[in-house]
């Protein structure tokens, strides 16, 4: 199917896929803003995100055309790298591109009823414009091969995100302070990142990521590089909601419009983690990043702390969205733990969990959005008895929830299996123990929700029997079934993440 789509692509489009991937949503964004009504803007958004998805699929086939993964390099505007800006797609970021564009597309289809209900009519077109900017920024971060360009895209997506989060004030005014807080933290994070890039530039005189990696080898022991390394690590850590830099996340997720929560949870932190992986492994290299600076002893404890602390916090929340938000931070911890192993198997497992968690959290928040649309309210009490009132929506929710726990036959199981294997290979049995312990915590916090949904009488006994609209159900079920499909047969996805790890560590690392 994937091959078929790319075979049908005209050659010119295929050749310019990296640029079109980002440019189309970027051009469509202002266009959507000036459209006369929201529905047109919505269609425009679907078109743009769908086009990006196609491009991502084309890129994936181009990358996979060679065993172990080719590198697609695209010189932006015909300016050859290293002087010009390069878009560089390899096995690692092609997965991220596919994840972001796929979820972006599904979210766009899914979002209409929810957005129409939560956003003022006059602002819907603007809303979609901001969404497209955010989407294009995230894709840009993943696609670019230039360090400063990465910062620019990071800020494009972030600024659009601030706007999207703040738009939640129609439902709950607490969205505004949350957004303000997010602006401060996000900007500090991005600024730290750009300071770090400045240091690297001072040390090497280049901004191209591939060139940086080459030249840093000669100056690795200089203080300038070390300082840059620290700044970049903290900056991207803030964006990725790495514990303890995650304080902005729960509020931002809890109060933003449900559609936005869903999209951000599935993609935003993932892209930041991708950037982190890119810098740690490609730019600085495993030896420098892990051995010379003993990063293991920073990344691993932080990952574990996130898993434990945030899982506990999730257990004690009374609001479904907050529970899931804290769970997101905990899941970021899992991914970081996988990365911190510093082996190809660990990174492959981390990437697998990154994709799986994107799908799982997307599905969970989609179901929440659907239910909020019909029944209002996100507290645990509001969710009581929804299992009878909306069985289809809630069954999908349950599937995704079980997947989050890591029950066999679901995606979560595959990635946890891969993570634990990677940890045990390294001899970190205690980390593996903590990982499964926090999975048990996930049983508790997901179990609480599922119990309320399926086994409690509704607070309001006259609750109508009403599902989320079909247009929301279909993407939701696509995600839920995707998680089951990965649970049944993860060989395809695993081959992608293995290729990604090989592209970082070189052939034979796995």
């Amino acid at each position, binding site marked *: 199917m994937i091959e078929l789509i790319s075979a049908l692509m005209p050659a010119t489009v295929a050749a310019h896929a990296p640029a079109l991937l980002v440019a189309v949503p970027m051009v469509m964004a202002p266009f959507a803003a000036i459209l006369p009504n929201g529905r047109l803007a919505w269609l425009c958004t679907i078109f743009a995100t769908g086009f990006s998805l196609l491009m991502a699929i084309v890129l994936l086939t181009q990358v996979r055309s060679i065993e172990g993964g080719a590198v697609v390099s695209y010189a932006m505007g015909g300016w050859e790298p290293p002087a010009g800006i390069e878009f560089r797609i390899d096995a690692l970021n092609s997965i991220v591109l596919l994840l972001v564009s796929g979820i972006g597309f599904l979210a766009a289809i899914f979002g209409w009823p929810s957005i129409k209900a939560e956003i003022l009519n006059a602002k819907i077109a603007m809303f979609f414009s901001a969404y497209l900017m955010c989407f294009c920024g995230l894709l840009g971060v993943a696609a670019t091969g230039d360090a400063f360009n990465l910062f*620019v895209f990071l*800020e494009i997506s972030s600024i659009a995100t601030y706007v999207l989060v*703040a738009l939640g004030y129609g439902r709950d005014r607490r969205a*505004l*302070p949350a957004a303000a807080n997010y602006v*401060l933290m996000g900007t500090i994070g991005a*600024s730290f990142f*750009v300071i770090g890039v400045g240091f690297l530039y001072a040390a090497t*005189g280049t901004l191209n990521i591939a060139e940086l990696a080459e030249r840093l080898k000669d100056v690795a022991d200089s203080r300038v590089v070390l300082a840059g390394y620290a700044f970049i690590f903290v900056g991207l850590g803030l964006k990725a909601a790495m514990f303890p830099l995650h304080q902005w996340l729960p509020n931002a997720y809890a109060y933003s419009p449900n559609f936005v929560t869903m999209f951000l949870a599935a993609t935003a932190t993932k892209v930041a983690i991708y950037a982190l992986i890119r810098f740690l492994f490609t730019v600085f290299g495993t030896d420098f990043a892990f051995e010379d600076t003993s990063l293991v002893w920073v990344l691993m404890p932080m990952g574990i702390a996130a898993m434990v602390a945030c899982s506990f916090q999730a257990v004690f929340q009374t609001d479904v969205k907050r529970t899931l938000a804290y769970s997101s931070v905990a899941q970021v911890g899992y991914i970081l733990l996988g990365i911190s192993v510093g082996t190809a198997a660990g990174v492959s497992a981390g990437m697998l969990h990154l994709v799986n968690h994107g799908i799982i959290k997307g599905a969970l928040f989609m179901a929440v959005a659907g239910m909020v649309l019909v029944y209002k309210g996100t507290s645990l009490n509001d969710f009581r008895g929804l299992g009878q009132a909306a069985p289809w929506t809630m069954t999908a929710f349950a599937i995704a929830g079980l997947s989050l726990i890591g029950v066999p036959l679901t995606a979560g199981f595959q990635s946890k299996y891969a993570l634990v294997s990677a940890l045990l290979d390294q001899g970190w049995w205690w980390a593996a123990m903590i990982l499964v312990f926090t999975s048990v915590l996930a049983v508790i916090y997901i179990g609480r929700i599922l119990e309320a949904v399926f086994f409690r009488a509704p*607070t309001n006994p006259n609750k109508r029997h009403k599902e989320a609209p079909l247009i929301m159900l279909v993407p939701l079920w696509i995600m839920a079934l995707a998680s089951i499909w990965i649970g049944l047969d993860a060989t395809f996805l695993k081959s992608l993440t293995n290729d990604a790890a090989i592209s970082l560590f070189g052939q034979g690392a796995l």
Partner: protein
Amino acid sequence: MLEFVLERGNYWAVIGLMMIGLYIVFASTNLLKRLVGLATFQTSILLFYVSLSRINGGTAPILYGKDYYAEAKDDHGAALDASADAMLTAGDVGYVKSLEDFEHIYSNPLPHVLMLTAIVVGVATLAVGLAITVRIREAYGTVEADEIRAMDLEVAISEAVDELEEREAAKGSGSA
């Protein structure tokens, strides 16, 4: 020692500005002041980049005098482009030779260009931040973060109390 400090005066200035900015962001409770701190912080980054690009005795990176004419004489757009490329990647060994052919010394233009982008990004962030602050003022009637937090807490507590009462009531009716 003193020389060491003074030679790097620009960096000290940058660091000082950065710390001031960060301090304002974290210490102040007024959202507007926080944004001011954020802007200060970002400005320090601009300064940092620009001072990175400065070369002793260098001038603004605009070709003039013989350099300009030498380029223009070729009369080919391609040659101009090539020299522009050369400037862009001043650090690259392959181009340094041709740089030395210039009569004048120029500062590295690339960080300047980067900072133009960064300024735009900073302005946009500030605008969004201010817009959100305006909305906060409309919704809460204040821009003091601690007051906002207190108000939110009050709402949350009253909600929790309501819920508790509701549950009690439900229990009471259930047993009756």
